[in-house]
């Protein structure tokens, strides 16, 4: 045993020596003019790995683009996150900020100015040096209205875009019109773009077309741990190690350890499970609880991990849109019920959340009474009540709201409203999400006991979103939102009445109700509040309003379930996206060389 350890230690040392030689010689020889600038690398603590090998991961869909400006969906963001880097980064495990491309930052006492110092001597993955011009270019692009960058909204504070000013070659100052509550978290996800590759396209107004998924590897570069190697349409995307990456491990070895990451495109969740089970892929994430338990039962050379509750919250909501003339008489009538707060509270009280956690998530999840999940302990409002399921209280609320219970055929209860109309409505869910369809079926049965007749209608996701945001022809819907950050700002467009994701009544010109107006005000205030305690107080109030008025009836939150081969080192899944790849530069193959031959 000890002999083997010693041998592997020697091999490791050997590798390290070769690697550091390579690193020392390679950049110096290819870019002699840069050789004198000292590289300010970031030393990362943690288990030291060994270089070499590759990992294979399945993606549910092909990434749509490599261009961070237009990336919206999860898989695209996941791929981009391993190819790009930002100035300040949120550590997905600690959920705190840490230095990235900026080695340090200072906030002015009034909270209006952030002074960031850039690391020296860094290079993009194609070997071109990173300088302040790249940073200025990046923010110019983000803030340019013509580009329609997804990051733009986050850079508008107090109605004004953030001003960027270069101080010297290493220092840049960001000035805000108003203090910004999130502080330096703002810079997470603001990846620095390669000016040398994109400036021409930007000047020609063709930036959105750059970085298409089929781009030649030498036409694309980033500051992340991996760079583009090969793309085979419909099959795989291969990334290779970025030799200029700016992080080292505790021993000073340059990371990442892995030579390659292969993303396979495997559209169905079940097919992903099979590939993982057969050893074709090395890691799996976004697992459903049922597949997780299948894999756990048969686990041999892989380890399954329940990382705890994530940030995804699932909820039921009713159509509260002001439809005016457009609404049919039937819809208008149903909306009368939906607008009644007592009706919504009664529905909430009748739902068996504990059964949802047990039957849908096999206990690997948490029941919810608000949008902040137990996976986000810093922002959750502990004061929110968790009323137990009570059909009696629910019936009482319905009686108060003017509903009556009658005896229908077969002796089943039938709920009718004040006009004697039976309470019947449909709940739409996404057909591709088996979990939510199951929740809807459970809710259907729960509400049947109150005498409501509910029909569950699974729809294709796109037509579902279309119904909610465009045509607004639906009664109720079961949906989920997965926040990308623990900070309340990540869900800003869900809570603001003007937000496009304000699902029960999206994109309002003026808040329809007083409490929506209050939420708007509180969310605006927390944006500019300077201390976390103040922000927490304001956001707590938002959570309380939501719990009181129940525009969304929160149901449950699934745990983040992942798995990896035991041969993968430094596997520490987080509850923030990307769940398993957030520390991709630290991942390594314990049997690196064997794996490479695969």
């Amino acid at each position, binding site marked *: 045993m000890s002999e083997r350890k010693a041998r592997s230690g020697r091999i490791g040392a050997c590798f390290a020596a070769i690697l550091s030689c390579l690193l020392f010689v390679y950049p110096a020889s290819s870019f002699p003019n840069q050789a004198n600038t000292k590289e300010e690398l970031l030393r990362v603590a943690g288990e030291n790995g060994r270089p070499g090998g590759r990992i294979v991961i399945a993606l549910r869909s092909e990434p749509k683009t490599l261009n961070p400006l237009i990336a919206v969906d999860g898989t695209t963001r996941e791929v981009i996150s391993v190819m790009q880097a930002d100035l300040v980064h949120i550590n997905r495990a600690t959920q705190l900020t840490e230095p990235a491309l900026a080695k340090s930052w200072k906030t002015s006492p009034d909270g209006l100015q952030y002074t960031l110092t850039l690391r020296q001597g860094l290079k993009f993955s194609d070997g071109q040096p990173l300088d302040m011009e790249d940073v200025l270019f990046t923010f110019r692009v983000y803030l340019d209205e013509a580009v329609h960058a997804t990051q733009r909204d986050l850079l508008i504070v107090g109605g004004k875009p953030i001003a960027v000013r270069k101080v010297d070659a290493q220092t840049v100052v960001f000035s805000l019109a108003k203090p910004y509550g999130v502080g330096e978290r703002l810079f997470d996800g603001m990846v620095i773009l390669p000016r040398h590759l994109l400036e021409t396209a930007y000047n020609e107004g063709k930036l959105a077309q750059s970085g298409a998924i089929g781009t030649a590897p030498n036409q694309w570069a980033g500051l992340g741990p991996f760079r583009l190697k090969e793309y085979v349409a419909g099959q795989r995307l291969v990334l290779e190690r970025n030799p200029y990456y700016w992080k080292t491990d505790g021993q000073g070895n340059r990371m990442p350890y892995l030579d390659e990451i292969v993303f396979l495109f495997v559209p169905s969740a*079940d097919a992903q*499970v*099979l590939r993982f089970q057969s050893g074709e892929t090395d890691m799996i994430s976004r697992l*459903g609880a*049922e*597949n997780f*338990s*299948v894999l756990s039962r048969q686990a041999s050379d892989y380890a399954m991990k329940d990382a705890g509750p994530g940030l995804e919250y699932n909820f039921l909501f009713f159509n509260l849109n002001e439809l005016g003339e457009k609404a049919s008489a039937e819809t208008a009538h149903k909306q009368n019920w939906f607008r009644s707060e007592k009706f919504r509270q009664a529905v909430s009280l009748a739902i*068996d959340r504990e*059964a949802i956690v*047990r*039957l849908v998530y*096999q*206990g690997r999840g948490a029941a919810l009474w608000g949008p902040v999940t137990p996976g986000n302990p810093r922002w959750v409002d502990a004061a929110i009540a968790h009323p137990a399921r009570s059909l009696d209280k629910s019936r009482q609320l319905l009686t108060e709201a003017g509903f009556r219970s009658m005896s229908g055929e*077969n*002796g089943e209860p039938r709920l009718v409203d004040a006009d004697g109309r039976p309470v019947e*409505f*449909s709940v*739409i869910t996404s*057909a591709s999400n*088996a979990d939510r369809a*199951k929740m809807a*079926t*459970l809710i*259907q*049965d729960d509400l049947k006991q109150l005498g409501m007749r509910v*029909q*569950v*209608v*699974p729809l294709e996701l796109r037509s579902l979103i279309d*119904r909610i945001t465009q045509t607004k*022809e*639906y*009664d109720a819907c079961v949906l989920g939102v997965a926040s990308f950050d623990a900070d309340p700002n990540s869900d800003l467009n869900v809570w603001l009445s003007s937000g496009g994701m304000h699902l029960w009544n999206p994109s309002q010109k003026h808040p329809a109700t007083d409490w929506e107006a209050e939420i708007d005000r509180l969310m605006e205030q927390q944006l500019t509040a300077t201390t976390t305690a103040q922000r927490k107080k304001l956001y707590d109030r938002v959570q309380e309003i939501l719990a009181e008025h129940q525009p969304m009836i929160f149901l449950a939150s699934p745990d983040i379930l992942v798995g990896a081969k035991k041969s993968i080192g430094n596997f520490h899944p987080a509850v923030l996206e990307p769940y398993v790849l957030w520390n991709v530069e630290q991942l390594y193959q314990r049997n690196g060389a064997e794996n490479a031959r695969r």
Partner: protein
Amino acid sequence: MSTRSRLLVCALALGALHLGVACAGFFAPYDPAAQDREHPYAPPMRPHFVDAQGRLHLRPFFYAQALRAGTFDIYEEDRASPIPVKFFVSSAPYRVLGLLRLRVHLFGGGDAPLYLLGSDAYGRDLLSRVLFGGQVSLLAGLIGAGLTLSIGLCIGAAAGFWGGWKDEVLMRVAELFLALPWIYLLFAMRAFLPLAVPPLKAFLLVVVVIGAVGWARPARMVRGIVLSAKERDFVRAARGFGASGSYLLRRHILPETASVVLTQAAILVPQFVLAEMTLSFLGLGVPEPIPSWGNLLASLQHYNVLVSYWWMYLPALAMVPFFLGYLVLASLLQGSTGAAKIEEAASGV
């Protein structure tokens, strides 16, 4: 056994099977939509006759199943508390043939849950669901086959009897229907319907659509027989005596098609049952929580169900006796037709 008695046996067996499904409420111990959230994915319970002490019981009994602590789908038999099967128990109300309201069930476990074929993801009794699901699927098959045959008979007879351009037009339309991709047609129709179709409407829609698109094949067969029948001597003679067209059809020609129509019926019913199952399997049939054989199998689309809960395959076995019955019936009917007898006679010479 003569063909006639074999036919009788087969028809009786099929009749008994159908009766069983028609009275599903009586044979099923539970309401098919009732959820038992304490027992999701409970495996089938085995009837016992000999207890732990080795004593023989004439009345079968079961052992209660309870989830093993900390698990969500692993059950353990509780040997300490046997549940004797109770017969003719009163529990969930149901209707027989949509008319008679009853509460009496053939058997049940009293207060303890009794899942002969196990339970599904929501703890619903699979046996009850298979029996009630049969009502939907078989009814769809019978109505669908009836609809198809009546349309096919009318159109085939009209085309064969009147011939000429009418024949041409009807047969071209039939070919169009043969070429129709009916699954896509159904997808398209579903998209035009209002969002929430009540279960009864959804069922009728499925039946009407599968019935209405299948008439082309029987129509062509009927047409062939009518074409040959109208040239027979006795038909010509009747025509010579001044019989009207409708009299000829009714009295002389259509009876000739009876054997083909019956055989077709026996073949078409299982085909339409299968069509309903396909649609429900794809989520286009009757909605939850109403069971049909198709949507009972739909959960098998998930890998974890496929590998973890073998009893979820059982609904697939339910159709086997029915299909076998119908196909045997079809071959017996075919064997007893005149055409086959002539063939036998010809080959015997």
